[in-house]
C-alpha cells in the first residue's frame, strides 16, 4: 500500500531514471518509404522511394535486390541546369543517369538514384522511368504545373 506522497516520489524516481538512463523511446519513423514492383516483359522491376523534406532517394531493382549504380543529381548554380554525377558503380556504364536527370526536372528536388538495370536496355530504362514518374505524380511528389513543389 502506498500513500499519494509515496506514489509521487516513485513517479519522480522513474522520471529521473528515464532521463539519466538510456531509455530511448523509439518512435516510428516520420519518413515515408514507398515500395512496389511491376512485371514488364518477364522482368520484375522493383522500386523503392524515400521522400525526404528536401531530397528524394529512389532505387530501381532489375529482378534482384542489387543496389546497382548510384547517381546524385541536382540543379546547380548559376542557371539551374541539372547536373548528374556517378557516386557509386564507376563511370563506364551510365544506365540510370538520364532517369536521375529527369527526376530532378520533374520533382524540383535533389535526387539520389540507385539503378541496377543492365546497360544497353533502353526499353527497360524508358519503361522504368515511366512507371516511376507515374507513381511520383500519384504520390504528389512532382512539381505542380505552377512550379511549386508539392509535399
Amino acid at each position, binding site marked *: 500500500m502506498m500513500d499519494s506522497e509515496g506514489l509521487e516520489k516513485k513517479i519522480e524516481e522513474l522520471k529521473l531514471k528515464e532521463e539519466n538512463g538510456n531509455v530511448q523511446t523509439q518512435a516510428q519513423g516520420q*519518413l515515408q518509404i514507398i515500395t512496389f514492383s511491376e512485371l514488364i516483359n518477364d522482368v520484375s522491376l522493383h522500386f*523503392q522511394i524515400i521522400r525526404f523534406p528536401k531530397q528524394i532517394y529512389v532505387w530501381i531493382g532489375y529482378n534482384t535486390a*542489387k*543496389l546497382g549504380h548510384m547517381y546524385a543529381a541536382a540543379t546547380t548554380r548559376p542557371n539551374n541546369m541539372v547536373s548528374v554525377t556517378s557516386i557509386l558503380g564507376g563511370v563506364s556504364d551510365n544506365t540510370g543517369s538520364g532517369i536521375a536527370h529527369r527526376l530532378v526536372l520533374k520533382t524540383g528536388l535533389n535526387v539520389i538514384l540507385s539503378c541496377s538495370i543492365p546497360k544497353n536496355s533502353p526499353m527497360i530504362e524508358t519503361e522504368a522511368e515511366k512507371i516511376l514518374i507515374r507513381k511520383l505524380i500519384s504520390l504528389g511528389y512532382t512539381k505542380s504545373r505552377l512550379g511549386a513543389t508539392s509535399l
Partner: protein
Amino acid sequence: MNIDNSTSLFPLSQLNFSRQIKGNETEIIISRYDDHFLVIATQIGTMGTMLYARKEEGVSINPTFNVSVIFGKRDEPMLIACARQLIEHLSLSGSSRPLVLSLGLKDHSAETLKGIVSAVIDNSTW
C-alpha cells in the same frame, strides 16, 4: 501487371525508426539489398554526406576496411569513424557486404556519432 507492395514479395527488407540523439530528432533507415547495406541517418531533411565502407579480404586473419566519402563533406573525420565502426560491426556479425552510409547531421560531435552507431547497432539484424 502491377504487384503492389506486400512485404513478403518485395525483395528488400528495410527498417525505419526515429530516435532523439543529443536533442535532435534523427530519422534512421536501414535497407538491406542483395549486395549492400544502406543506412541513412538524417536530422536535416536530406541524406547529407554519403560514405562507402567495405571489408577487404586480405591474407591476414584480421580483416581490413576501406572507408571513403563518395558524396559530400570530405573533411569530417568523425563521419569516416562512424562508417568504420559500423562496417566493423557488420563484419563481426558475419557479413561481408559493403555499407553505404548516409549522414545528414546537425553536428558532427563524438556524442552524436556514437549515438548514431548505437542506434544502428541496437536495431540491425545484419
